[in-house]
């Protein structure tokens, strides 16, 4: 089934989104694009050609559901390069759509909501279904697998690195069911969340710390979350908190415009971050991680008109200052926690 015309003419690629619409629509689209002007085609020829493409696609679709088969199947002789394109195109998704289903359970119930999502995003229902089914399929396959998530996805679905990472984020969100739908989170894009997911996967899961560990990459490390409680000392111990504040203020004085406000709000901000950490033992609070970050930290900062650079400086010094606290013994946990929180906040801190 390898055909030059798929590719050379971009037919395949341009038509792929079109496979999510009825043949007649696809024909119309192609007519509008001026396909009739080429090669003295007539509508009949164009329709039959489009039907061919659709059928071919339908037959390939079955194989695309398990891309590893595509390479060894005998039914279609597709050049290796084209196989890669096919898979990649098929598994591509609209980030708008992904944003909508992010954190939702990939189940029948959600599937029913696809109508609404389709209306909201303007993506055809068929396309939504394909994307949703892709998410679900990937999720089902890697859910139970051991080892690094991204690699698992790559191995089973032969996706490019970028795409595999995106899928890892989707799987991760779907598994932990992070809250992303709240109105206050609407301003965040899929890419924001995908970045955060990447951070969480890289630093907060078991696989993250010990690559030898043959454990799941999908869940956050329980032990680590428990240990986060120990960080409470930073707010509970008054001396330590004061000292922390002094150190941060000393480092930032004159360097940020919002210094005054920061000095006033330091305790609130610090408490927000530490409380967030200590709460993460409860699944419910883990789900609310992002909404909490926004409500407790990002929004106050935004209210005070912090710039991204200022936040960067603040978080850097906030993290580093804790090392200088003589009585603070949980350096490892602190770094692991703050590293992720910092990059997440920075990613999420925008309009």
């Amino acid at each position, binding site marked *: *089934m*390898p*055909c*030059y*015309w798929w*590719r*050379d*003419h*971009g037919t395949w*690629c341009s038509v792929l989104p079109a496979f999510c619409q009825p043949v007649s629509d696809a024909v119309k689209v192609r007519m509008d694009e001026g396909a009739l002007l*080429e*090669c*003295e*085609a*007539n509508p*009949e*020829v*164009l*329709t*039959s*050609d489009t*039907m*061919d493409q659709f*059928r*071919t696609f*339908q*037959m390939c679709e079955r194989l695309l559901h398990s*891309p*590893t*088969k*595509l*390479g*060894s*199947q*005998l*039914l*279609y*002789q*597709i*050049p*290796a*390069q084209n*196989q*890669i*394109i096919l898979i*990649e195109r098929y598994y591509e998704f609209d980030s708008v759509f992904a944003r909508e289903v992010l954190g939702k359970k990939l189940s029948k119930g959600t599937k029913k909501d696809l109508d609404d999502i389709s209306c909201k995003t303007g993506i055809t229902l068929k396309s939504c279904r394909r994307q949703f089914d892709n998410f679900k399929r990937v999720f089902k396959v890697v859910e139970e697998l051991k080892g690094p998530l991204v690699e698992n996805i*790559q191995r089973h679905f*032969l996706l*490019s*690195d*970028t795409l595999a990472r995106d899928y890892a984020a989707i799987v991760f969100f779907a598994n932990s069911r992070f809250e992303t739908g709240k109105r206050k989170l609407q301003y965040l894009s899929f890419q924001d969340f995908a970045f955060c997911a990447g951070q969480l996967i890289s630093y907060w899961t078991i696989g993250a710390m010990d690559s030898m560990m043959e454990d799941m990459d999908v869940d956050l490390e329980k032990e680590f979350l428990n240990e986060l409680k120990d960080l409470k000392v930073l707010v509970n111990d008054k001396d330590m908190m004061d000292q922390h504040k002094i150190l941060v203020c000393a480092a930032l004085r004159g360097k940020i415009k919002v210094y005054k406000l920061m000095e006033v709000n330091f305790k609130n901000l610090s408490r927000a971050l530490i409380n967030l950490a200590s709460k993460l033992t409860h699944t419910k609070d883990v789900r609310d991680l992002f909404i909490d970050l926004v409500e407790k930290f990002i929004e106050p900062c935004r209210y005070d008109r912090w710039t991204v650079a200022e936040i960067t400086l603040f978080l850097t010094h906030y993290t580093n200052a804790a090392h200088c606290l003589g009585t603070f013994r949980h350096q490892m946990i602190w770094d692991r926690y703050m590293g992720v929180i910092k990059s997440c906040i920075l990613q999420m801190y925008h309009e």
Partner: protein
Amino acid sequence: MPGKLKAKIVAGRHLPVMDRASDLTDAFVEVKFGNTTFKTDVYPKSLNPQWNSEWFKFEVDDEDLQDEPLQITVLDHDTYSANDAIGKVYIDIDPLLSSEAATVISGWFPIYDTIHGIRGEINVLVKVDLFNDLNRFRQSSCGVKFFCTTSIPRCYRAALVHGFVEELVVNEDPEYQWIDRIRTPRASNEARQRLISLMSGELQRKIGLKVLEMGGNAVVGYLQCFDLEGESGLVVRAIGTACTLDKLIPGTASNTITHTNTHPNTAPASNACNSPSKEIKESPLAHGCRSSHNSPVHSACSSQRLSHSQNFSVSVPTLVFTGTVREKYEDPTHPLSVPPTPLRILPPSSSPPPFSPSKPCSRQSSSSDTDLSLTPKMGKTPPPSSPFLTLSCCSLILSGMGSGISVGKEAGPLKTLLRQQAQSALEQREFPFFTLTCFPPGFLVHIGGVVSARSVKLLDRIHNPDEPETRDAWWEEIRQEIKSHAKALGCHAVVGYSESTTICEEVCILSASGTAAMLNPRFMREGCLDAGGSDQRLSRQPPLSMVGSERAEGEVSSSWLGFDDASPPSCGFCHIPYDEFNMPFPAQLTYCYHCRRQKVPDVLFTTIDLPAEAAVTGKGCLIQARLCRTKKKAQGEVNATAISNLLPFMEYELHTQLMNKLKLRCMNALFGLRIQISVGENMLLGLASATGVYLSALPAPGGIQIAGKTPSDLSYDQHISTMQKRINDTIVMNKELYNIHPPECIEEVVGSPIPDRQRSRLFRSTSESSDELSELDLSHGKKDAFVLEIDDTDAVEDIQSLLTDAPIPAGFYSCNTEVMPGIYNWTSGLQMFTSVRVYRLNNANLTNQGLNKIFTDLCENLLKSLYFKLRSMIPCCLCHLNFTVAVPEEELIQVRRHTPKNTSPILSIFPRNILLVHMRVYVSPVSSVDYGSFADRCSTWLELLRLKAHTIRRGSVKTISSSERCSPLPEVRSRSLRSTRSLPCGAPVTVVKMTPLSFLPRTRIVKYLGIINMFFIRETTSLREEGGVSGFLHSFIAEVFAMVRAHVAALGGNAVVSYSMKECVFMENPNKNQAQCLINVSGDAVIFVRESDQEAIPPLITSGQTSTTGADGTT
């Protein structure tokens, strides 16, 4: 003679889920050959079972090895109920029987089920240990090579071309047996598949035997066909050209004539001849092996048959060996196997190896002794006394009638075989036919023109499958007719010969056509083997003789042609073979425009490919004539009469159309002409395709002039003149398009007999035309001889339709021959397309005009959609376009035979579907001056693929990764796709190219692995769910391709050449949501290497092929 077949089941993958509960399968495999079955263990709970079985060994006769396929069935083990079949794989082991071809079959085969299609794959290993066969009296013909290719295969040279071989076998169609009422559709389909596989194996074996008798070792241009005659049975028939081929040693091919006998035991015939003494010694042993087959019944019968042959033999009273014969014959234990013995001993002693000595004589005289050879058949039956019989056979051989050997040799159980063998003695000489379409230079001396014959027959039940007399007689009749046509054209041979049938209910039209020609007798004489330099030429037939210097071969010395009036090869074939003053048909002769010495006709029609050495002006193009004729529904005799009355008119009209279109394109010759007539219940369809060219040797065609019937009418005159103008404009345009600029002012030089007539030809009025037709009919029985010269049209519509032919989009070229005349720069980017279109007619259109329009549009649209698909590949050329049209009959709409015969009323009102199947190849020319800009693009694409090519050969994986080439990826895909990811797990699937051409441009075929001849049935009871007719056919064709490729890959090949879809029968019953389709494909499995890097790497493959099934159900 026994051989040992060994099979090993390695593993399976992608199996379907058979156990819904666990979503897994407990698979095991049954391996069956003949009546022996082995089973593997059950591999529980896996979709990718690893059986890794022991070697299953079958000890069988080599006869069975040739006939039977290895049958592998994959089943799902079920503890409580019957085991469910997952699917089957049939493996034809014939390629393993020739030592030159494959040595092992190893690879993944798709598991095929006639209801579900492909369901997973299975990895199988098959080997054959063939004990060296020294028995000369066997039934088997292992080692005879078969080629679908209609030219001398690329890595061989023809030492000798023996001639026509044919055979047919008949059986009851399982689909129509009573048992079919109680068995499942699957069982019935499988029975049918198996039967056809068996029958084609048997057919091949029998043809092989004939070839061995003739002293050949190969069949070239092997064409096998099925006639599904419904109630009256199933006929499998084949024709071919027997040759003696020598393998060329790669590398030396171009500069030496080394007669390679490197494979002495490949051709048993030559082997035998080389060691006569051994032969005699071995023979007693042979009897022991064969005895089981003998039965008195057969002996009686055979003797009766053989008696015919006495007519020849009596004249030469050689009794030398009689004593031996009798003695052996009286040996009671081996009554039948003995008589041939002395016969086989004889040849070595009496003739030089390896060719039968007298063949050429018989060949040459063939045309003259037709009548003579006919007589024996009607001859009296002499007393069937066995000793007498053997005696006669004996003398036969000594008398030098080479083909006569056949008479005695077949001592086997099949009386059919015997009879045919007896007949073949006659037929060998009777039919100087060649199925080849492309010849070694010098082979073809003159071409007369197309000869064709058709006959309408009423089918009756074949009562005794072993005696397919009627069918044989039918073909015999037709071949005789063809032969007499050829004779009338002054030719002694017919080349590019083919046969076909079309069946509608009990009416069957048999057709045969070919090109009458004079051949160079040297190619049929043993002497040519040692003819030195000249002979090298014929063997070589350069891989791409058309590429580049067409003229290089032109200098072939005329001395060796063996003709006094040696004519230059570039025009010699055009010279008339018939007598100038006694022309068989009206034609205008002129002196050859090339050599000016010989006469040539003004137009030349042929069924062969354009000879490589021919001088051509401009480019060629596809010319098609299409025609529909309605007829009344009728039964039996009446129907047959109606059809046979219509046929001549259809042929006449098709011919007129072709001629007009040819003139319109300013061309003067047609090559590769193929006329297909299909019969339906209430219509006849005619489709003629050919490639038009301008032969430089022939005179320039005259223009077309229209003359009205009623010249008085003024408006009519005006109409006529506008039409005339349009025609003239078109001609001028076409001249430009096809680059035809013949040198003018030649006529004055040569004193052409009728100089003024060729300038412009007048269309005569209708009355005149019918006169001419009748005159033609009277011309001593040559009514179907296709060398009519008629410049005439009946009606104005015809002229209009002439003009409505859509012009080919710029940048496209199409032809139905192997190579496009006038284009010599091919890339290796080759793709094959198969497209099937089903059109439902409704009653309203049932007029001749309406039908014609629909039919023409259908054909045009098929071409257009192909152009459209390939628009990005401009410039490109569609070669070997092959159209097939069928009108399935009303009753066949019922797929399941369990259902009663009456269809629903709606259905019966709506008449027939037209089913169009066609295959085509497309090759894109590259790197000429004209296409400079596109060249880059094409080659970029090639580089790209080169980068990606992976190849497995015989299990070992070779990956060619070239880092130095970084081809720019097309814009659409350049984003981050080229990451370091490796491809899908495991070894990549071998890429197998498929092409209907006999070669792959810019590559060299290094080995022929054997013939691929496969038959599949697919049936569905959920047509709508599978995407309707289109979806069903689309996936079926894709599956067939997959299976063909898998077989080729398992043989170690990387391409199928001369691929063709011989049969594609489709039946549907939309009301019942059912459909059934039968497909037969054939081709030659080969290994090729790219010309540029042949020394090193096994092939780099560029692409595969596509099946596009466009079906427009208008209902």
